């Protein structure tokens, strides 16, 4: 299993277009933010250094989410490619058990997603510390790294369901394009959740996207929110957190947001297992 995981990692990182397309969605949203959105939001949030830090960490949070989705899905295209090109059939002739084979793809996708998120975090943090003179939050790395791994698991388990159902690379590319596009919307980058109609809010809350963004914002913006809203009534602070999608409905705390994501992971793994049990017979036919 380790060998197959290593092989998947080498193949991913040796292909520059893989790496690029994993980051593309994030680069686009980051670019759009810098070019068009940042100034407006800064004006709205009053451009003091504390508020700048708030805004910058806010966009890092969202970008980490889109990077995780994009990287997980791109990494899992290897599984579909291998299915459709007899590679899985060849590997099934070895002593590797089928469940370990599948676990290899999941594990490599998780590692890839985590590494790409870490790269995004370091890149954006460095940019903002240079451009906006905000402090690079080194102290957050022990918290953010396990969170990245956790988020990778969310998106990898979701992506694995898609990759298990699709056997054709063209169909997979189309599917992933749709997911990546929707992810930007569902991550609530450009508008508060509560501005959407009730039905729209429900649809979004039924996906992991807003909770992942919320967790990242919770972690990244925690210190700056506390600084900015020192001695401010809790109601106002919560109202602000609702506006910028740190609170998602009744899920206002980090632990509640983690819990709901654990629920999503369990659901995705359950669905993936059912598909996998059915697929084992048909996968290489």
């Amino acid at each position, binding site marked *: 299993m380790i060998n197959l995981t290593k*092989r998947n990692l080498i193949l991913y990182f040796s*292909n520059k277009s893989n790496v690029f397309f994993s980051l593309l969605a994030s680069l686009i949203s980051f670019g759009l933010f810098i070019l068009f959105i940042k100034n407006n939001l800064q004006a709205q949030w009053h451009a003091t250094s504390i508020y700048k830090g708030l805004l910058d960490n806010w966009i890092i949070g969202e970008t980490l989410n889109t990077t995780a989705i994009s990287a997980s899905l791109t990494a899992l295209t290897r599984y579909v490619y291998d299915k459709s*090109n*007899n590679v899985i*059939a060849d590997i*099934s002739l*070895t*002593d590797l058990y089928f469940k370990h084979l599948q676990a290899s793809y999941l594990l490599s996708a998780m590692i890839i997603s985590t590494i790409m998120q870490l790269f995004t975090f370091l890149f954006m943090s460095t940019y903002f510390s240079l451009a906006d003179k905000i402090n690079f939050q080194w102290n957050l790395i022990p918290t953010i790294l396990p969170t990245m791994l956790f988020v990778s698991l969310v998106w990898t388990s979701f992506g694995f369901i898609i990759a298990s159902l699709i056997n054709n690379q063209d169909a997979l590319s189309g599917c992933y394009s749709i997911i990546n596009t929707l992810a930007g919307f569902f991550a609530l980058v450009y508008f508060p959740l509560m501005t959407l109609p009730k039905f729209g809010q429900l649809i979004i809350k039924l996906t992991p996207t807003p909770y992942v963004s919320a967790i990242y914002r919770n972690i990244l913006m925690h210190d700056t929110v506390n600084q900015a809203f020192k001695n401010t009534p809790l109601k106002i602070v919560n109202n602000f957190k609702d506006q910028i999608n740190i609170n998602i409905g009744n899920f206002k705390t980090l632990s509640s947001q983690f819990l709901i994501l654990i629920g999503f992971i369990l659901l995705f793994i359950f669905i993936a297992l059912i598909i996998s049990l059915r697929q084992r017979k048909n996968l290489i036919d």
Partner: protein
Amino acid sequence: MRILEAKNLTKIIAGKTIVNNINIEINSGRLVALLGVNGAGKSTTIKMLTGINSPTSGDVEIDGIKPINKSFSHKIGVVFQNSILDADLTVKNNLWTRAKMYKNIDKNYVNSLIEELGLQGILNQKYKTLSGGQRRKVDIVRALVHKPKVLFLDEPSTGLDIQTRSKIWQFINNLKIKYQLTILLTTHYLEETEQSDYVYVISNGKILAADNVSNLKAKYAENTLKVRFKDNSKGIQFLNENAIAYRLVHNKYLLSIPDDVSAIRIISAMQSNVFDFEYQHGTMNDVFLNLTGSRLDEND
């Protein structure tokens, strides 16, 4: 000693019978060809024999072991029609990644395989930079890393030029001798069957004939003598008097001849009236034509 036995193998996909009740028996150390046009059911048959696909009905056993048994895969090596190795990995990486997926792999054996089969010079090259023939060799070595007893090759030389095909065939023949392998390959190249110990002719999912090449030719192909006469009427008279069957094709008379001796006798008897002649032994294409109603080279 019988090493491979397949009984009543059938595969039905979406209501269509792809392979229809075929039986294959292969003795140890033989090189056996499964000959048929594209779509005849060769690849599907190989997939059932290797346990990659399960048959709709029928049984397969290799060295007394059925595909459901995990140790079955240790008995076989498979070279797929399209390469399954990774273009962006080196030859070394590709081979060792696969080798390490087997338990108790003999590393010294793998190294000796690499050396003896001439891959040392390309070990550190990326697979995608190799020529077609080199890739095929690497594919074959991958299939041998775990010391299988039976090697399956699905159209091993498709897409290769004639010189490379010839080299790959030499390579496969050498493997058979060196590693005492039993080899089953599918092909639609007739010249490849000429080098086989035994041939199964498959068409529309059925085995039409199974024998060694000489017997197949003796049963299903005819030797022909093409003659151009100086005087056609005298030539026809001779043929009729000697009850020699003939037909006229493009100004030449095609005579059905049972053997080489008869051909020599006829030419000698007619030599004063023969302008030119050409003698052809029955070919596997004739075998295929007589069995299936079409020439294999028409389907290339």
